[in-house]
């Protein structure tokens, strides 16, 4: 049910984004435009919302990007998560902080002064965290004795860390002056993973759930504010080389 709601929300956001893009068509000129460069900071709404409705989760994420060239943005995220995962055989709490840094490449060509984005990018992620095993079950395929296989412990594993690479695809739409909404979808791959000796990192802050192998997925819904720093004139495509750009 949770996933269905998540999916419906996704679809709604996609449709909103599409309708925003659809309005572009009416304007059609080749007048050189000036484009704004600056810093955008935001937060992940999903983590905030989940912290409210899910008692087993507390988390937030600050996102940021800086427009470096016409299409390339330096981007990153910083966040903190505290999540208790309840599996049939295991119950554990993961706490930790993560950093991600990388770039986004805007593949969407805006009309006039629109600033919407469809981006592809990469991040390098790092997380430092602890795992606390709250309870676990002994898996016994041939139970015979009347004994409980659930063992309650409070076993804490500190000093754990993970490094990973993310492939990011996302959209951002300006909803009103300088305010953007967007979402990104991420495919993650672990580079290194410092595991506890007799347990595993089944959840890593920033990376999310780990699967067999090194893969993971993630997403965020962001609301962000753009702080303009300077403007640059964007000449028509054929002359759109570095020498054609001029600071205003």
């Amino acid at each position, binding site marked *: 049910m949770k996933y269905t709601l998540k*999916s419906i929300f996704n679809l709604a956001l996609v449709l909103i984004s599409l309708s925003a893009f659809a309005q572009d068509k009416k304007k059609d000129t080749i007048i050189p435009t000036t484009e704004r460069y600056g810093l955008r900071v935001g937060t992940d709404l999903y983590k905030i919302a989940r912290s409210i409705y899910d008692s087993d989760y507390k988390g937030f994420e600050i996102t940021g990007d800086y427009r470096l060239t016409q299409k390339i943005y330096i981007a990153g995220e910083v966040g903190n998560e505290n999540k208790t995962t309840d599996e049939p055989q295991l119950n554990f709490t993961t706490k930790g902080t993560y950093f991600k840094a990388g770039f986004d490449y805007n593949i969407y060509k805006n009309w006039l002064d629109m600033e919407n984005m*469809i981006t592809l990018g990469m991040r390098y992620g790092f997380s430092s965290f602890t795992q606390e095993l709250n309870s676990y079950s002994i*898996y016994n*395929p*041939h*139970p*015979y*004795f009347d004994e409980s296989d659930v063992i309650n412990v409070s076993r804490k594993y500190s000093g754990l860390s993970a490094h990973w690479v993310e492939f990011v695809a996302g*959209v951002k739409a300006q909803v009103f002056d300088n305010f953007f909404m967007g979402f990104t979808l991420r495919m993650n791959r672990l580079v290194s993973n410092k595991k506890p000796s007799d347990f595993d990192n089944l959840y890593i802050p920033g990376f999310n759930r780990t699967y067999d192998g090194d893969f993971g997925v993630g997403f965020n819904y962001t609301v962000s504010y753009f702080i303009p720093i300077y403007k640059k004139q964007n000449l028509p495509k054929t002359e759109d080389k570095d020498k054609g750009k001029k600071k205003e």
Partner: protein
Amino acid sequence: MKKIQNIITALFIALCFFGCEKDDICAGTTPTTPRLMIEFREKDNPAILKPVTDLKAEATGMTTAVVFNDGLASTDPKRYLTSANKIGLPLKITGGTVEYTLTQNSTNANPAIRNADKITFNYTTKEIYVSRACGYKTNFTLTDSPLQEPSSVDNSRWISNIVVETPNIETENEIHIKIYF
């Protein structure tokens, strides 16, 4: 616009695919808590495996015997019988001692043929992490040779000799104990 739509559709499908993933189920093929695997051999010819007729195994303190035929109803006495030359006995995952009564010809009405022997297994346990779906498993290490009830108590023992093949009980793919009779 077409390109944008394709990309967004792809993202959406990918998100749904990952979002809808079912929780893992512990696969039966994953090695988890093993049973004590016992092989029966002929005492006069140790090379030959020997099946035990209508063997029943029950731990002291339990009211039912170990199930050997899963498919049968719990009221069917055959559910608790085997005539194999190899059996697996569950051990307590928390305790360090289990006493089993192994009864040969357990359905025979003649008490002279029906024969029950008691064996005590002493062991230590170790919990080992397996996976998200399976949680942990317990492995066992036999600390000494399984003890038979002394012949002064049971003067008609059917088991002649017990040999520990592997004291470390980590998998059901190997024999841990050989019983000669």
